[in-house]
């Protein structure tokens, strides 16, 4: 599960002199092995170590796999182009099991044991919220790719930043007018019963009301649920649009049971691609979604209007026109989110170069340099689109995509403007001491 080795496998076996000597010799050999202290004198050429808090296992594992691939692709390009400040970038991965408690331990381990410069890459909101205090305590910059509103809300601390992916509040604010105008005015919401779901519950209704629609039901579902039919009677018969955002392994069941429950007479569906990230849209039972609409952070399927930067990004990460791995068409990517890893790494690069980052003593200056960023132009470093960064709330704002599922693929039908997703900031991290 982690790279940690466990030496005391047998609790009762006594440690013989020979074993102890062997262990000492091995440890000594490791220390003197070439490479171990190679950079002790030459700090300027030592790699910049980025700790990657990765969901390798647990319910976020599909995301973790693709976050890892995207990170590897971006780091390869960065290193080929000369690294950051002339130093190569090295990624140190620790698995957090998509678990909040483990997440905090991973941050501490990356900082204290692996001596990384920064921590990066967390997605699931409960892990971010659980890990943020550890980042503050250790005074280590914590760049998350999480899309929850927890960063922008001011709930976390000055060491937590989200410069590569937009937050849920911005996402729902920008898609609500489209839902009200095109899908229907009476909306029932189905969302997971924890922080990420609450962002939807709290910020969609006001945005819909402003657009002249209303929320008629809010149905929270525990993230470990495996069967959904029992929740469907709570959907009022007046519902015109069913807004669904689900996570975890059971999303296919959700759609399938929805199809069985409603048949051909169901409400319109508007979903967040989170429901189907890493899931093949041609899976059995998903045909029920044909004709329904999805929010996408970045389009999974190649679109006719794709920029060269977008095409280069897809090729570098290794996804085909259907958003699946070029090596295995059944290995579907989490395209709606993983671009955030790529863009976050380039923001880190930009900020490190701006403050001439040398080592952990410059961590506070790195945070300030990131806060100073305002606009991020579309291009190879930001293939999803141009963005605006708000240093006060440590949050980036960008375009959102609304896609229609047709014939087993998603076609983009609407791209929101950056202004559509802006809201009044509720916090100002820059007033906190570093």
């Amino acid at each position: 599960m982690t790279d940690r080795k466990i030496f005391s496998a047998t609790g009762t076996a006594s440690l013989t002199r020979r074993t102890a000597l062997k262990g000492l010799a091995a440890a000594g050999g490791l220390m003197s092995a070439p490479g171990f202290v190679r950079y002790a004198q030459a700090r300027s050429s030592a790699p910049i170590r980025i700790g990657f808090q990765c969901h390798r296992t647990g319910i976020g594992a599909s995301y973790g796999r693709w976050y890892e691939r995207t990170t590897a692709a971006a780091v390869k390009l960065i290193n080929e182009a000369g690294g950051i400040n002339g130093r190569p970038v090295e990624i140190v991965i620790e698995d957090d099991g998509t678990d909040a408690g483990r997440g905090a331990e991973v941050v501490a381990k990356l900082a204290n044991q692996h001596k990384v410069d920064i921590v990066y890459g967390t997605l699931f909101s409960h892990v971010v919220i659980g890990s943020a205090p550890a980042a503050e305590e250790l005074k280590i910059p914590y760049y998350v790719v999480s899309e929850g509103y927890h960063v922008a809300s001011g709930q976390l601390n000055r060491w937590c930043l989200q410069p590569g992916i937009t937050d849920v509040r911005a996402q729902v604010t920008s898609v609500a007018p489209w839902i009200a105008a095109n899908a229907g005015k009476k909306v029932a919401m189905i969302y997971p019963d924890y922080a990420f779901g609450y962002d939807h519950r709290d910020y969609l209704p006001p945005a819909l009301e402003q657009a002249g629609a209303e929320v008629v039901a809010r149905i929270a579902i525990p993230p470990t649920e495996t069967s959904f039919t029992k929740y469907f009677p709570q959907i009022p018969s007046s519902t015109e649009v069913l807004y669904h955002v689900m996570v975890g392994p059971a999303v296919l069941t959700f759609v399938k049971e929805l199809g069985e429950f409603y048949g051909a007479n169901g409400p319109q569906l508007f979903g967040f691609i989170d429901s189907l990230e890493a899931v093949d849209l041609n899976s059995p039972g998903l045909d029920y979604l044909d004709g329904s609409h999805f929010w996408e952070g970045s389009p999974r399927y190649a679109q006719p209007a794709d920029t060269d930067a977008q095409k280069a990004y897809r090729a570098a990460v290794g996804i085909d026109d259907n958003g699946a791995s070029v090596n295995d068409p059944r290995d579907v990517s989490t395209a709606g989110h993983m671009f955030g890893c790529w863009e976050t790494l380039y923001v880190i690069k930009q900020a490190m170069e701006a403050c001439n980052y040398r080592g952990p003593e410059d961590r506070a200056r790195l945070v300030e340099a990131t806060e100073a960023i305002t606009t991020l132009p579309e291009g190879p470093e930001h293939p999803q689109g141009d963005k605006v960064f708000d240093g006060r709330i440590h949050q980036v704002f960008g375009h959102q995509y609304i896609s229609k599922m047709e014939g087993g693929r998603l076609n983009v039908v609407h791209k929101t403007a950056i202004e559509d997703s802006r809201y009044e900031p509720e916090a100002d991290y820059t007033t906190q001491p570093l």
Partner: protein
Amino acid sequence: MAFGPHLLLAVLEGLVTSAVLALTALGLSLVFGVMRVVNVAHGEFFMLGAVLAWAVATAVGASPASGFAAALVIAPLIVGAVALLAERLVLRRLNHDPEATIVATIGLLYILQQLALTFYGADARPVPPPFNLRISLPWFGYSAYKLSIIATSAALLLLSWLVLTRTRAGLIMRATQYDSETAQAFGIPVGRVYAAVFAIGAMLAAIAAVLIVPISQAHYLMGQDPLLLSFAVVIIGGLGSLRGTVVAALLIGLCDGVISMFFSPTLARLIATLAVAMVLVFRPQGLFGKAAR
């Protein structure tokens, strides 16, 4: 939705849960009853059944019906073989000591789970149901496949009961359960009975998993819930009692269906756990179990 149809849906959902739970818990109950082994890895045999069902159905690749049929036969057999191997390599070497086997099966749990993660991956993968029929009721639609799960499970439970009470193999198992030392004195190969029972217990879990996988996908972490609920069923029903297992599974499944639909799923779990605690306090041998000798 009106109260009547709402209740009907709740009962149907509860019955599906009960059907799968009864099969899974029967396996656990059998293993404990005969071997006195608390098999913590039981949920992972369930998971393994589902994962193998996906593998078999994908390998067969023909129509969903034939893929599913192949999975229903092959997956439990492989799981049975894995269980047999585990019994021979691990449990037997611990002399089926109750405490040691708990720890050993916890280890087995993690080994199976991590093997599934390594070789199958972290994604949830679907197996197409053998038939896609939607029964259209005036108030809501319901999957005919789900109804067939209830029927299949009932048939398998009946079969288990017949085997246990009407055949020589069943007699040997019951004799071993009743008093293994005396059974051995009468020439019953207790070691082989243990191995067979452990394999059969795992196979029952695997069959339950193959039945459920077309409606809830195979995932490497899916073994946790069935394990907890099976323990609840076995404690309430009484260890080693088939009748108790079925009654308790019906009770917990229906309770889960109705309470989670009218109130909340969390409350349903709370009540199930409370029931387990109450049974442990007031009737430790379970509703239908016999007091330990």
